[in-house]
């Protein structure tokens, strides 16, 4: 089969220049030479809005906070437990709202529950989210026990609540790691080249981000003498988030580029600064509630920026056909050469 080599007038004119070009972009992939249909994208851009990026954060925060709450419950740290449970419930409420709002037909959100489909990460995620929500809801509800009267039927319920809360909290903690990481599979199981190529790394980015935000919530909501484990988790999560994100930004050849340029690049650079500063604050401010709170806020903001950065990178990768065509051409060439 012959390959026409002469350039064509149309359907071929798209030869993008390097974009970005910031100081950090010294080690660049050489300018891609490829053909396209009037420079149009091959794949569709995600129809998801920022609601989905925001859900990545709130879902991760709910998971991280539930883990902190369960640990606090088992080790006798009541203030940290309350913080974790209440944060998890609030983040869940936000998550549910964002997820339903982003549907094209919000009134049909219950259709998600008509099947359980292993090939669909969104279907699996729906069931993980439902199970987690039920458990975390019980755990948070148990925190109203101290305000209930001790007599009568209500009093009976009030006395049963702490035990139910512990069971719910532990069940929530058991499902939390799945809730925090399935979203990475959700994004990777797409034809979006930047998200798909990141599948070995994205679960670690999201796991780290969830731990950092959950720990940060504990640092903000609980007094410093109880918040030790939350600080440790925040630092560990931040380290994991930073390491894994670095891999996404630099170890995927051409497909790392969408994470370094444009809006995604700016967001992920901001995320790096905020997360590093938050982790440093968590380490240094162990005795100060003020420093802990500031560090926690920085970590939360860093987690938000990471999620939005990953989301934006997918949009960048979908808009330029080079991210679809060039890696596939290289794959074909490698196969033919083999």
């Amino acid at each position: 089969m012959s390959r026409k080599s002469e350039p064509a007038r149309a359907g071929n004119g798209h030869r993008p220049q390097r974009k970005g070009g910031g100081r950090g972009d010294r080690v660049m992939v050489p300018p891609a030479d490829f053909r396209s249909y009037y420079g149009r994208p091959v794949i569709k851009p995600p129809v998801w809005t920022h609601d989905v990026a925001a859900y990545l954060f709130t879902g991760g925060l709910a998971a991280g906070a539930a883990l902190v709450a369960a640990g606090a419950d088992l080790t006798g740290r009541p203030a940290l437990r309350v913080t974790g449970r209440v944060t998890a419930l609030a983040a869940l409420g936000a998550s549910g709202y964002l997820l339903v709002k982003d549907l094209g037909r919000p009134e049909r959100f219950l259709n998600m529950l008509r099947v359980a489909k292993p090939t669909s990460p969104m279907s699996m995620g729906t069931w993980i989210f439902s199970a987690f929500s039920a458990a975390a809801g019980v755990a948070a509800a148990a925190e109203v026990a101290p305000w209930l009267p001790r007599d009568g039927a209500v009093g009976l319920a009030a006395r049963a609540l702490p035990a139910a809360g512990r069971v719910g909290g532990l069940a929530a903690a058991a499902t939390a790691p799945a809730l925090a990481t399935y979203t990475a599979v959700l994004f990777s199981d797409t034809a979006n080249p930047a998200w798909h190529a990141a599948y070995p790394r994205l679960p670690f980015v999201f796991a780290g981000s969830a731990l950092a935000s959950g720990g940060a919530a504990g640092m903000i909501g609980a007094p410093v003498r109880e918040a030790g484990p939350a600080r440790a988790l925040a630092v560990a999560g931040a380290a994991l988030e930073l390491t894994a994100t670095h891999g996404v930004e630099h170890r995927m050849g051409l497909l790392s580029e969408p994470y370094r340029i444009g809006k995604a690049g700016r967001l992920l650079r901001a995320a790096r600064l905020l997360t590093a500063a938050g982790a440093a604050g968590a380490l240094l401010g162990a005795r100060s509630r003020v420093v802990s709170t500031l560090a926690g806020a920085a970590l939360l903001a860093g987690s938000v920026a990471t999620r939005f950065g990953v989301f934006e990178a997918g949009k960048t990768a979908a808009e330029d056909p080079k991210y679809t065509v060039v890696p596939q051409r290289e794959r074909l060439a490698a196969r033919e050469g083999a």
Partner: protein
Amino acid sequence: MAGPNSLFGPIDPATDAGYVDAPPRMGFFTDTSVCIGCKACEVACKEWNAVPDDGFDLLGMSYDNSGELSANTWRHVAFIEQSAPPSEAALDVLREAERSVSTQFLGMPSSTLPGATGREDRDLRWLMMSNVCKHCTHAGCLDVCPTGALFRSEFGTVVVQEDICNGCGYCVSACPYGVIDRREGDGRAWKCTLCYDRIGEGMTPACAQACPTQSIQYGELDELRDRAAKRVEVLHQRGVPEARLYGHDPTDGVGGDGAFFLLLDEPEVYGLPPDPVVPTRDLPSMWKHAGVAALTMAAAVAVAFLGRRP
């Protein structure tokens, strides 16, 4: 039923989806060497399927003003103008197709006056191609659909049930060809159904029915694949060496397309991905990585709390 090749590799999709005694797999063979760019397919599709208009845009892309496959464009004719002069052999193939048109035909887009006869003096090669949903053997859209709105028909095609779809948009990102899309103002995902309502009655899909040059051929996929292989051979013999098939191979990244093509240039020139792979191929590995990350989280929590009693 589900087997070792359910996510990747050659299979019969209807049998894999659980159909017993399914009818033969049906599909399209779109032969672009005889496409004359009349857009009858685009129009017939819209008419039959009551697909809304997609606005009146002049895109400045040759004769293409619909731009791409979308929720409101289920057949899309691409027009590519290349500075390379067309080979006489390729032109002869096209003229033959033109002559086969029985109704009054106003002529190919050309550089001469309408009705002019004789060899055209042009330094322009015009490629035209009617694009459509590929009805993949391993369909990314169908794999990821969380509601079951997308389903595999008994004919091996992939169809959206509009009364189930809740517009989550996952299928849009999962299609390696950029076919399925969400309709503005409607919120649901739409794409070619391979005229599920027609083929169930033994009728030909609207686009293939309307195609005047048999550039769009509908039939049993096995038969179409044989026909396409012979067609490429004929074209090569007649001096059109650039003819090649796209999407015909059951061992490719999507297990072969139910709608495949004969192209006269590289796929990306037509806006097609050169080596598409169904995203779900890597799903087991994705869950494994997520599992390790999840265990890492759990371990970190255990260490953080066990290490320090208050």
